[in-house]
């Protein structure tokens, strides 16, 4: 047995974007166990949503839970509130929600991939990926008015329509982005340095992913076919617009990169199909009802299953709002997947988890 060391990583560390703290126990360089803490950014958002804001305002509050998947939060909340007041968003609003969710997935996945490259010491690829990501931010601003925290989904529908010239601009920019995505796939797939660092690192099996209830690209990279877009047709018609599940088998950093890259092609297909078949209807279903009863909603955010529970009491204020972010579901597997890896691989493994502590701690 080698000498054992305890090595802290985070909450502030050059390889971590998020305030997450890991304590690794290593035997020489090999990680034999990991402890995690996520307690640095609790903001009391669930409490505020039930005590400070009326239920119609809450979609704007939960949009601030996260800068990366703001639209997922505001859409999931809007859907759960719609269940409580017993209305359904118009079809055009559903399509526009899916459009923004997919644009958001493009920017989020590219951010994750850029940080995997950065943590592998590949600065040039980090900058290239961030440069290619910029179009998605510009398109989100054109559609929603903001680059982040879009305030797009509201209870009953969406706040803005898609103008024809913006739709045309999105199609044009996607055309430019497609060869750039091909280039990124080629680098992530074939670059010798990245392959050496990423293949086999931080791997979990399909059985472990299932046992630990992993979600999102983390699960799909291990072969666990779980994607809410494949499941909840009643809320958003994903299959109508060309959704297809992407999975891999090896469950390592390399597989997570490839799943995210392949999902970008699906996102592009979905966006094109939405623009080509955008139905004509109102943008909002109006109601004067107050929330009553309890409901749950699941939605596939870029990092996986986002879960909202809400309980109403026939007043303007909610009785309870519970948010479960995808990273929260993945914490148990994140801790386990380090075991057996070299400490030097930890930064790349963490980046490949794509953790979001802003969502997790709320």
């Amino acid at each position, binding site marked *: 047995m080698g000498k054992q060391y305890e090595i802290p990583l985070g909450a502030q560390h050059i390889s971590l974007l998020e305030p997450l703290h890991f304590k690794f126990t290593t035997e020489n360089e090999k990680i034999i166990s990991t402890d995690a*803490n*996520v*307690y*640095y950014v*609790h903001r*009391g958002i*669930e*409490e505020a949503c039930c005590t400070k804001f009326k239920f119609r305002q809450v979609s704007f509050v939960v949009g601030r839970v996260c800068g990366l998947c703001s639209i997922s939060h505001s859409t999931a909340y809007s859907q759960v509130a719609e269940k409580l007041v017993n209305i359904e968003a118009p079809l055009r609003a559903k399509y526009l929600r899916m459009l923004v969710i997919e644009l958001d997935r493009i920017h989020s996945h590219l951010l994750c991939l850029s940080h995997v490259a950065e943590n592998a010491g590949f600065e040039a690829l980090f900058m290239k990926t961030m440069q290619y990501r910029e179009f998605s931010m510009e398109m989100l601003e054109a559609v929603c008015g903001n680059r982040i925290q879009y305030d797009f989904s509201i209870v009953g529908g969406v706040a803005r329509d898609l103008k024809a010239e913006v739709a045309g601009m999105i199609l044009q920019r996607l055309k430019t982005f497609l060869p750039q995505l091909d280039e990124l796939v080629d680098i992530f797939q074939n670059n010798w340095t990245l392959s050496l660092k990423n293949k086999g690192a931080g791997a979990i099996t399909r059985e472990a992913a*299932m*046992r*630990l*209830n992993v979600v999102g690209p983390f699960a799909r990279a291990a072969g666990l076919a*779980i994607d*809410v877009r*494949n*499941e*909840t*047709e*009643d809320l958003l018609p994903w299959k109508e617009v060309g959704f297809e599940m992407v999975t891999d088998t090896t469950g390592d950093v390399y597989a997570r990169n490839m799943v995210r890259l392949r999902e970008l092609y699906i996102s592009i297909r979905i966006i094109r199909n939405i623009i080509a078949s955008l139905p004509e209807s109102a943008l909002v279903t109006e109601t004067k009802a107050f929330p009553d009863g*309890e*409901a*749950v909603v*699941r939605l596939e955010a870029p990092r996986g*299953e986002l*879960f909202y*529970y809400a*309980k109403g009491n026939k007043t303007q204020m909610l*009785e*309870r709002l*519970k948010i*479960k972010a995808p990273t*929260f*579901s993945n*914490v*148990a*597997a994140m801790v386990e997947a380090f075991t057996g890896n070299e400490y030097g691989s930890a930064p790349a493994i963490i980046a490949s988890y794509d953790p979001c502590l802003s969502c997790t*701690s709320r």
Partner: protein
Amino acid sequence: MNKIETSVDSLKKDIGAFYKPDLHHFMVMNAVDLGDKIELQWFFCNYAFPSAVTTFYTLISPDTEVPDISDIVPSAWVAQAELADLMNINIENTKKGFVLEPDFESGPLRKKK
């Protein structure tokens, strides 16, 4: 949402009989403060029929010790640790300080009296 009532005494037996790791996806635990009582909830869905959410629930007093189910659902320790911090719920084998800093207000999501 299919709600199944359970109790603290039969919780492990009920969830143990229901939960199959290759069939069921455990999503999260939740608690709703009803004043004198707290409603605890465990949410599951089925990989084959994912739209169907199954919820186990029980009403407890604030000082009740709730059994740890992480021997049945290994990832449940994360949700248990969160509820111990945010709702000040006493859960077996679960220490505080995972979601909130040690000097944070205890049970911030509990209703203020």
